[in-house]
């Protein structure tokens, strides 16, 4: 797992970011998400028994705190608005599990988070917002939020390579703001994002949906 993270992330290529992707798939669908959000690297694998719920495992590694989280995550689609040319969603995400880290003398601590995420998109434009409250026993609780806008320069059909130009703004727990322009490539079951923040760090995300 560490080798995978090192390979994927690369040394020092970290940008603060919450990734904004749909956390619930179709009934019977599996999804793998590999995400760098600067302060942490995340692997999230989930299964959707219905189109409104997903259950999965989440791993997070926070480099600056040398903190590791292993969480069971439940995502719930609270509401979806399906329109002829667009779709909007409201999600509740939550996770509970164990934190390990230097700040706890490498002893395991209970940890969890709750998050609300909303998005709207059509085939040309994309808007999303997400927040998260993270809790750790005997640790610092913190709140972070992120917003993203996107534009597709062309409309591709199913199976074509879709390209999106996006801008992400993160408001971190320590009150820092980070702006990250990025490009999203989307084809079939693969979604790849890469960007560069105003702090010079690289963003790299990959999602596979089966």
């Amino acid at each position: 797992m560490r080798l995978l993270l090192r390979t994927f992330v690369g040394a020092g290529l970290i940008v603060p970011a919450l990734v904004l992707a749909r956390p619930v798939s179709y009934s019977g669908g599996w999804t793998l998400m590999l995400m760098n959000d600067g302060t942490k690297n995340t692997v999230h694998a989930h299964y959707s028994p219905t189109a409104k719920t997903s259950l999965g495992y989440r791993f997070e590694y926070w480099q600056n705190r040398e903190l590791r989280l292993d969480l069971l995550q439940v995502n719930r689609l609270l509401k979806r608005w399906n329109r002829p040319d667009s779709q909007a969603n409201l999600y509740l995400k939550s996770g509970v599990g164990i934190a390990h880290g230097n700040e706890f003398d490498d002893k395991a601590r209970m940890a969890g988070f709750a998050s609300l995420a909303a998005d709207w998109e059509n085939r040309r434009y994309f808007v999303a917002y997400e927040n998260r409250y993270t809790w750790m026993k005997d640790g610092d609780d913190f709140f972070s939020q992120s917003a993203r806008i996107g534009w597709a320069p062309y409309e591709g059909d199913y199976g074509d390579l879709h390209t999106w130009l996006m801008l992400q703004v993160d408001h971190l727990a320590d009150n820092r703001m980070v702006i990250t322009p990025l490009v999203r490539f989307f084809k079939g079951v693969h979604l790849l994002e890469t960007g560069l923040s105003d702090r010079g760090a690289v963003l790299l995300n990959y999602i596979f949906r089966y």
Partner: protein
Amino acid sequence: MKKLLSATAFLMALCFSPFALSLDEKVYVNVNGMVCDFCARALEKVFGRQESVESIKVDLDDRLVVIHLRKGEQLDDATITQLITDSGYAVREIKRGE
């Protein structure tokens, strides 16, 4: 009487001919909320589990799903609507024919 028999035979032949069976082989479904490849993939996977479905084609431009049924198989509107819902989307209209 002879004409009646001939007409009946003709209608029966028509009913059991490949042409008659193929009348319902394609179902055209207009779907709301279908905006990306993940949406299309979801529909492919969910409909692909149905034995009556030969294949489906998703057209994002026209917000249209074309379901190709196996010869002689049927898929009623209620089932189609449920499968689209299971995929996470909403049916606007269902049409049948060649």
